[in-house]
Structures are given as C-alpha cells and as structure tokens.
C-alpha cells in the first residue's frame, strides 16, 4: 500500500511539472501565432498592414501577465477545455484531436502491440535455439532493419510498393471516393491505406524487441534454476516459456509500457511521409503554426499517457517482481 501511495504521489508531482512546462515552453518560442500565419502568407507576396491587424483580431493575442495566464490555463486543464485552435481557426482543439486520435490509436496502437508480441516471441525462439539459423536470421535482419532511420524505410516502402508497383495507396487514411461509414468497403479501404505506414513501424521496431528479449532470455537461460529444471527432465517448451521467458520479459515489458504510452503521440515522421491524418501529423502542423492551444493539448495528452503507462508498469512490476515492493 505504501508502495502504491509513493508511486501515486510521484505520478501527481510529475503531472504538475509536465503541465507547467507545457504552459511555458511554447511561450518561449520566438514569434506569435499571428507571425506564423503572416510568414506563410508573405511567401506569396507582401502582406498589408490591414491583413496583419485582421489576423491578430481573429487569432487574439494572449493578454494579462504570465501568472494570470498560467492560472487561467490551470483552470482550463482542469475543465479539459483547450479552447480554439489557431491553425484550424475557428475549429476547437477538442474537435481536431478527436478527429485525429482514432487513426493514430488504431494504426500505431495495433502495430505496436503486434510488434511487441511478434518480436518477443521471435526473441524467445532465437535465444532458445541460439547459434542456429533460427537465431541468426531474425537477429541480423532485425538489427539491420532497426538501424535504418524510420523515414528512410518509410520512403523506400512508399516509393517501391506505392509509386513503382502501385500495390498500396500512397497518401491519406481512406480513398476520397469511398464514403466514410461502417461498411465493409470502407473498412477494407482504411486497411489498405494503413498497410504501408503499419509496415514501416513494424519493420523498424521489431528488431528492438527481438534483440532485447533474446539477450534477456540468454541471461536467464544461464541461471541455475533453468539448469535445475533441465536436469529434472522438464519439457523444453515449458522451460523456455514458463521458467526463462517469464523472468526475461520484465525489461521488455517496461519498454512496452513506455512505447504504448507514446502511441498517443503517433509517429510524426511516418504520418508525415504517408500523409496519414493522425496525431503525429497534427502535432507537426501545430508546432509549425505556433498553435499554442493545440500544441498544449497534444503535449499534455502525450505526457499524461506516458505517465499513466509508466505508473501502470510500476504497479505491474510490483505484482510480478516482489523485490520491487520492498
């Protein structure tokens, strides 16, 4: 119980720090939202005085002292009211986030879980059969693929599978010609559009899980209790899964918790490359447009989900490994 309270206290303290940073950081960026909008316009030619005045009137410029703004902001956060987006003015931040979030949660969420499960299983198999091709092939290709930068893999897939072979659509989350709705046709279309970004995330993250699991597993396989189990003539699979893997998975589980928390943030580069309308792409545009309200809502969402994931992993650790509770 004390362990739980300690963790909860730490969680709340970090949350407050995150909210506060979240308030001050965007305000330290040079230029205002109106400047960002004007810079975009002025690329197409000089912008008149009147345009500046109109844009400032539309977007509003923060007023009051920093302290007043901070107090008002804390109130907003408590009410989960994030106001109106600047770059998507006059749309509310809440409506922008709720449009983008499902895409990211489904795409990045499913793929992250898939990558973790597949990667961990391969890691177990690789460690169990270490030194054979079953070990070398996945370990090598895994580490090879994970050394590529995310966007490079994304661009290669986009270019060959999308533009050269025309197997998969190259942009967007669904074809413009299909009508959104719960129809088989629309869901199939969504799935086709998700293939390339999903493949990118899968390919680049698989290696980490494989190697992490394989190495942890090899360590546990050297433990006395495993040798003892072998000496007792237990079935190989039982030893691998019940004795070794269960203990070896702990570090991977921490990583998984954190990654899962990060899912909410989407995958900026992948979403950018494939024009996928998720949170990552939204965040990118919010930063470019100095869209404080949208940025703050997104950063907060990401921070909170990572914190919650962290908190849950701590709790889970406490359950799985009695030593941490002391």
């Amino acid at each position: 119980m004390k362990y739980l309270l300690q963790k909860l206290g730490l969680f709340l303290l970090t949350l407050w720090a995150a909210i506060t940073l979240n308030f001050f950081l965007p305000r330290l960026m040079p230029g205002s939202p109106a400047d960002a909008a004007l810079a975009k316009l002025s690329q197409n030619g000089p912008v008149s005085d009147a345009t500046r005045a109109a844009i400032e009137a539309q977007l509003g410029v923060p007023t009051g002292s920093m302290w007043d703004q901070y107090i008002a902001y804390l109130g907003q956060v408590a009410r989960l009211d994030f106001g109106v987006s600047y770059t998507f003015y006059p749309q509310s931040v809440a409506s922008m986030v709720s449009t983008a979030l499902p895409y990211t949660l489904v795409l990045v969420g499913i793929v992250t879980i898939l990558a973790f499960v597949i990667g961990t299983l391969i890691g177990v198999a690789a460690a169990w059969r270490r030194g054979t091709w079953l070990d070398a092939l996945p370990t090598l290709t895994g580490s090879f693929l994970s050394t590529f930068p995310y966007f490079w893999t994304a661009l290669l897939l986009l270019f060959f599978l999308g533009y050269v072979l025309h197997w998969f659509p190259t942009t967007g989350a669904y074809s413009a010609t299909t009508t959104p709705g719960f129809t088989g046709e629309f869901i199939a279309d969504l799935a086709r559009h998700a293939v390339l970004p999903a493949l990118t995330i899968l390919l680049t993250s698989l290696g980490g899980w494989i190697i992490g699991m394989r190495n942890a597993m090899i360590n546990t396989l050297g433990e006395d209790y495993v040798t003892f189990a072998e000496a007792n003539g237990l079935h190989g699979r039982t030893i691998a899964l019940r004795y070794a893997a269960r203990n070896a998975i702990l570090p991977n589980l921490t990583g998984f918790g954190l990654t899962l928390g990060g899912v909410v943030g989407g995958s900026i580069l992948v979403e950018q490359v494939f024009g996928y309308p998720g949170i990552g792409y939204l965040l990118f545009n919010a930063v470019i447009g100095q869209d404080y309200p949208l940025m703050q809502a997104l950063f907060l969402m990401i921070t909170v989900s990572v914190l919650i994931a962290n908190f849950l992993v701590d709790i889970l650790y406490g359950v799985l490994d009695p030593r941490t509770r002391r």
Partner: protein
Amino acid sequence: MSKTHMFRRWRRAAVVGLAAAAVVLSGCSIQISSQPDPSIGDNTMLINADKGNPFFTRNFNPYLTNTRTASRWIYEPLILINPLDGTQNPWLASEWSQPDARTIVMTIRDGVEWSDGEDFTAEDVAFTFDLLKDNPALDIKGAWQHLDGVEVKGGDVVFRLKGEDAPSLSILGQTMIVPEHIWSDVADPGTWRNEEPVGTGPFVLGNYNDQQYSMDRNPDYWQSDSIEIEHVVLPATNSQLDTVTRGYDWAYSFISDVEGTWGAASPHNDWWFPPAGVISLVPNLEVAPFDDVNVRRGIALSLDREEIAETASEGYMQPAGQTGLVLPNQEEYLDPEIPDGGMIAQDADAALAAFAESGYTLQGDRLVGADGEQLEFSLTTANGFSDWTRAAQAVQRQLAAVGVKVTLKLPQPAGYQSAISNGDFEMAIGGMGNGDVYQAYNGLLSSEFYVPSGETTSNNFQRYRSEEADALLAEYRATVDPARQKEIVHELQAIVYDDLPVIGLYYGGIWGLFNDAKFTGWPSEEDPYMIPQNYDSAPLMIFTRLERVKEEGQ
C-alpha cells in the same frame, strides 16, 4: 559449424545484399509516371490547391485565415486583379469611375444570381462593406483603412474615401462579396464556418469529407457559357511525389528539375513560372553601418545576381534590377533613363570605391573600417524557405570575397516574421513588389509604416524615411490621371535605384504546373492573362478561359 562462423556468413550475405540494392538504386533511375484515378472523368478537374493539415476542416468563410481555398472561387470580388501586372478586370462590378480622388463609383453587374436563386444586388455590396466595418477581424484587405462610407445609388455603389486615395480602388475591388440574405442572420461572422456556402461564383460545393471535397458547376453562373468544367476535385494530402504521380490537371509547387519530374510524367504536362516580387536584401537602416548609403551601394556592387538567382531558384528565375519593378510584367512602368533596366552588375572595384567613401578599406582579406573592425553583420532568413536560404548562402560567399563577414540566422518562419516586424535584425532577406506598382512602392517606402526598431510594422521593414518619397506617394494618391501616375512611378524608381533602401537580388517565382490532356487555354508567357496560381481569386479568370479537349468524332 561454430556460431561465429555462422554469423560471419550471414554478415557477408547481408553486405552483398545491401551492395546489390545500392547498385539497383543508383545504377538505373526509375521513372515515375502519372497514374490518374480512373474514377475521375474527362469533365472533371483534379486540382492540387488546398492542403488539409492533415485533414480538411469545413470552413468556407472567405475572410478567415484558415478558409478552404475553394471558398475564394465561390465568392467573387468586384474587380479581378492580375497580380502579375496589376491589370484590373471588371468582375461583379461591370464598370467603375473615379470622379475625383476621393470618390469611387462602381456599377454593379446586372443579371447575377446567388447560387440559391436570389438576385445579387448593390445592397449586397453595401452590406458586405458594412459587415467588414462591424467586424474588423474580417477586413483582411483593409478596406476600412481607406473608406469613410459606402452608399447605394440605384445600381451603383458609391465609395467615399477618407482622403485623396485613388489607388484604393484595387483594395476595395478585391473584397469578396457575400449575400446579405444569409450573412445578416449570422450572430458572430468572425467565428462562423459557413458550412453551406452560397455565392455568385462558377462552382457550388459538391461532396465534402475530411480527405477530399468536390465542387460542381453552378448552372446559373453569370458567365455560365464560359465554364466547361463540370466538377473540380480537391484532395487533402499531397506530397511532391503525389503532385507528379496522381494525374493532377493543375498544381502549384516548386519542383526540382521540373522537366525531368513533372514534365517526364506525362506528355501533356506543361508549366509556366513567371516572376512575381523581388527577393531582396533588407538592411535595417537604423543599424550602423546600413544607415550609410555608400555601404549599401558597396554591398549591391559586390553581388553577382546571376549566380544568386541560379543558386536560389535552380535557374528558373532571373536576377532582378534595382528599380523595385517586376520585369517583364511591369515593363510599361520602367523609366527608360535608368541604365540597364536597373540591373546592377557585379563590380569589385566600384564596390571597394563605394566602401572607401565610408572609410572601409581592404586589409588582407578583410574589409576594415576606420575603427579597425572588420565589416560584419548577420543575415536573417526563415528556416524552411529553402530558396531564400540558398540565396543567403550565395550572398555570404560573395561578400566574403570582398572581405565582409556575414553570419546567417535561420529562425523558424514565425520567429523570422517577428524579427523583421520588430526590427530585430541587421540584414534580412525579404520580398518586395508584385502586381500593383503603387501598393509596392507605398509598402516599401512610405514613412506611414515607419516605426523605430523595437516596434511592430508590417511594411517598410527596413525603416526607411524620405520626404521626397512621401510627397510622390501622396501625389500619386491624389492623381486620377494615368500619365501623371506613370511619371511619379519613374521618380519612385529613381529613389529606389539611387538610395538603395533595399537591395534587389532575384525574382520570386510563381510555380504553375498544368496538364492539357483534358483542358486547354492555360495562361502562358505568350498569353499572360492571369497569374498561374491556383489559390486566391486568380482561378476565377482561368476557369472561364479553359476549354475541354474534344475527342475526335465528338
């Protein structure tokens, strides 16, 4: 087989595989061709003009910053201006007159209907201007900085100006007109998204979803006979690769090696990149030594504009002269007495002579002032504006050759905008000119926009003041005689040429990409009837000029 041996074999296989992939990638270049969507018919135009980031929001209020591009084709202005040369085409106003420099009378076009069937009247025009007066946030062209009052007289609308202000015609004329019978019921037009737009334009909103929307031909459009496009389709997400491969009929994008990419993708792909605006060095005239015209002249003479233009725009754009005019668009305004059309050639000796007038001499490879310090300054441009960045690097190299040390500053666009607005820079890259010559010189030279560094302005970033220029600009405003206006423009050119308030480098480009498989009649160098951009109001004119390609036997 030992484990290490096993790994070594795998590693060798991997290396071989990687090498093979590299050979494939570098050895044969893969030509991308355009693959049009078969569901898009011959009567439908696919335009890459509106970017949803990452998806569209349903906003068709034409005055808001984040309006959908197509809202400017649903609502029309009174006068349609070609930003290339400032030509004023009658649009919702069929004609206009300026009885004196304080009054503009516009005759409202007869027989125009709103897309819901109501008649368009002079009252709608007056209502629109009153709407902008009551909601300054919507007044993006700044009509009420010039207006005193608007009244309807029969089919005419009379604009009373605040002062002698003949050139305000172009600003009032560009205001988009909205229907009184709909907008008068809107509680807060400043945040209204106008999801079901009703306008006078050639198209009405068709299907809409957050990935794409379409527009349908408005059968009751007042120029209906000239519109041969049945539908226009605008997708939300477009990368440069999409631009080339998706079969667009019209796109607007700077593309590297346009011939090898856009041009090679389809035999029907064509492009026109006219110049627009002069990309310039903007010195902060309140910062020493830029308050000294000799230093400005020395810098201007040190630059090889050919090389800067070539580097910055991959050779698509020409170097610009020192008149502030965009040539050849504004050739008719060019003062024939200005040598070489205003072009300043690189001349190291003349540059050193100019610097020497202010006490700067070359010592070794450093240009040193009377105080013994090397002439050095920072040059600010916006991160991500890659052509400006390349131009800034070229300037840095060329000035290093005459002993001037330049450091580059690359804040994010918002930071850049804030720096030049507040005078928080030494030298910056910026754009000047384009379209209306009066607006160009007024924004550049008028002390009306002067504020000291530390205060915000949105024009005259270099913080220039000259009584002579102010007097000329005032006289231009008071003149309705085009011949006299042209003389004034000649004198303003001379000021820019002699006084170098900014230093012209090269022309900014307009990147029009077309495909003429389905529609022909695009603007071109031979027929520059409109700027080839697919945002703002320019497409209104282009839509009326496009003709469908008839298949043989049809």
